[in-house]
């Protein structure tokens, strides 16, 4: 069988985000088992382990599940990712950190076992600017953009990129950190009210998102000029602000809603048979879709691995190869019942991160749903690639890594 451990967090401060993702991740595999009998005839097992978003528990989960023949890890927490990077490399198990983790892991030459396709934090920052530029008719000269960020490693990720971009495009960048957990943001938003930036980009997580959206509404900051990263763009983040959140935007690297053929199968094989992972009430939410998407990527990588190695019961190392040669095309997605669900991309030995296509979604408070309002746009590789090279080189030097490609 194929083992895909799910390091989930259904408790703790970020439970609200962890539950839908974990549900989607598990439900997709259940569907494959129920409908197709697994992948390539191998049934799939998804042992779940609760991390509560806590690095130590994450390590414990990793250690306790890796012995079962785990094929890939998705730690879903930047902190846990950092712990696991050296460990998975030593244990020859790949790790997928879509839209999170260590951005420079895109450089597969240095990070042989870490993948972060289809997009990373720096892609997000770049696309946000791109979107703003579109809104502003092509120029950001003299504009003011504020970055409200979770004052942690994760929140600080986009700063370098944005600084580069501000030089390139001539806008003024204002950094506004919010300390964990972010329940009180009065002074940050007063600062924003006073500085009157043209746009606000947010890298938030957990309760910080809800409070920020609320506070933005309170100071009557125009919601359509407020753009969150994908971790600040779920239903959880906007619902508590009610109607005032209408128009708030967020980035995404996959599509929204449940209007796909796959969901019919899901309903038939999983939901109606009562085999859902959680309460079954998360289907179609943004984070549930992200779980589905992540599972789909993993499943396709496993299929690829089975093909290139000619065995069905693959090992972690073979899974890694499968991920490295993964190609996601529109036909593939359509065949899976997920047409147009995400960008096309392909992975290679030096590029573990895909092409960096990101789209923008917008919240419709009345209908209580997210809508895609832009195409998938590619990030500014000219800015990002040098940064990735620089950061991964530092890591390679520190850890004496020669390069795999």
């Amino acid at each position: 069988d194929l083992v895909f451990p799910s390091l989930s967090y259904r408790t703790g401060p970020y439970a609200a985000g962890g539950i839908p993702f974990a549900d989607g991740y598990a439900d997709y595999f259940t569907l494959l088992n129920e409908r197709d009998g697994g992948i390539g005839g191998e049934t799939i097992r998804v042992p779940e382990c609760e991390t509560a978003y806590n690095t130590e528990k994450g390590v414990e989960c990793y250690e306790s599940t890796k012995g079962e023949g785990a094929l890939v890890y998705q730690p879903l927490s930047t902190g846990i990712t950092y712990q696991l990077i050296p460990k998975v490399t030593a244990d020859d198990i790949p790790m997928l950190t879509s839209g999170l983790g260590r951005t420079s892991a895109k450089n597969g030459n240095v990070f042989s076992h870490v993948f972060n396709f289809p997009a990373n934090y720096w892609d997000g920052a770049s696309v946000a600017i791109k979107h703003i530029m579109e809104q502003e008719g092509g120029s950001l000269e003299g504009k003011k953009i504020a970055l409200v960020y979770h004052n942690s490693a994760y929140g600080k990720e986009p700063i370098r990129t944005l600084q580069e971009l501000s030089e390139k495009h001539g806008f003024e960048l204002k950094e506004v950190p919010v300390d964990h957990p972010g329940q009180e943001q009065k002074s940050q938003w007063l600062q924003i009210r006073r500085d009157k930036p043209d746009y606000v980009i947010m890298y938030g997580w957990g309760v910080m998102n809800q409070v920020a959206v609320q506070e933005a509404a309170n100071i009557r900051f125009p919601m359509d000029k407020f753009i969150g990263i994908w971790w600040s763009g779920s239903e959880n983040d906007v619902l508590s602000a009610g109607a005032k959140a209408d128009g708030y935007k967020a980035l995404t690297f996959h599509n929204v809603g449940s209007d796909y053929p796959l969901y019919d199968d899901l309903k038939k094989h999983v939901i109606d048979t009562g085999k859902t992972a959680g309460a079954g009430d998360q289907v179609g939410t943004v984070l549930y879709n992200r779980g589905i998407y992540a599972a789909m990527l993993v499943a396709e990588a496993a299929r690829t691995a089975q093909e290139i190695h000619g065995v069905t019961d693959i090992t972690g190392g073979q899974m890694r190869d499968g991920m490295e040669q993964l190609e996601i095309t529109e036909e593939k997605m359509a065949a899976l019942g997920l047409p147009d669900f995400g960008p096309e991309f392909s992975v290679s030995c030096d590029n573990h991160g895909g092409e960096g296509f990101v789209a923008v979604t917008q919240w419709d408070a009345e209908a209580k749903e997210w809508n895609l309002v832009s195409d998938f746009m590619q990030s500014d590789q000219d800015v990002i690639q040098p940064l990735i090279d620089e950061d991964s080189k530092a890591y390679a030097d520190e850890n004496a890594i020669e390069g795999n490609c």
Partner: protein
Amino acid sequence: MPEQLAFTIEVFMNGLMAGVLYALVALGFVLIYKASGIFNYAQGVMALFAALTLVGIMEGQVPFSHLINAILGTEVHHFGWHVPAFLAIVLTMVVMIVLAYCVQRFVFRYLVGQEPIILFMATIGLAYFLEGVGDLMWGSEIKTLDVGLPQGINVWIDEFTFDATGYGFFIDNLDIVASIVAAILVIGLVMFAQYTKQGRAMRAVADDHQAALSVGVSLNFIWILVWSLAGFVALVAGIMWGAKSGVQFSLSLIALKALPVLMLGGFTSIPGAIVGGLIIGVGEKLFEFLIGAPFLGGATENWFAYMLALVFLVFRPQGLFGEKIIERV
């Protein structure tokens, strides 16, 4: 009015308002500390629990539905009714009183006369327990709490000040409500503690519970009373904070904002909680605005609140309004 001054005033006023919200949480600590010398670590979790219960009741959620479904394989989630906010608040209060009773009956009754640190420890156990029960009972998804409190900028103040000074001040409606509620609570609690028989008994228990027992004060009753009061304060705090951020686990972390307030105002003083809250609120906001954000890279509020309290404490080790520590040999 020069801009910088206008902003500073605005920050100052918002600091006051934030301080009131901190004080609301701190009040719960003070009540229990005053009456039993217990430093109630669970106060934040109680606020969360109260808010969860309130939402759960309003939405007609089936308590423990996850557990029931997991064990029995059923699919129950909602009763299918909605309870009006007012009634739900009353019902929640009943739950909090039951909780107070249980806390007394099953925990503190057996720990009478133990050292403060041990009582503190028990409240830690309680915090774990309540957090688990709250999650099991109502689920850990984020919930929207809407009891109809106004939120957002107060237009009247904005316009009025704009006309008067050329700069419209931002004051949040929710903060105004919170200030009024806090004022009523504080006045009520001070009157209670100072002038009623039960209030006096409460202070007596705090000083020397054995002696209080010896004159016939029932510790059980007094403690249930204060824990209920603290539960009520927790509910109020839960409503105010829940309105800002939705009801979810992080609500229990508001306790951290209350600690410096407590320390500055004094663990035993109800007015101290308010004054401490105001000083902390204003201090941290002004510092962030004038020094933190421009020179230190921001996000200084957390530590600054504690540092500020620390400086006050060095001069008054029992806090501004705390009872003087009687040191005699």
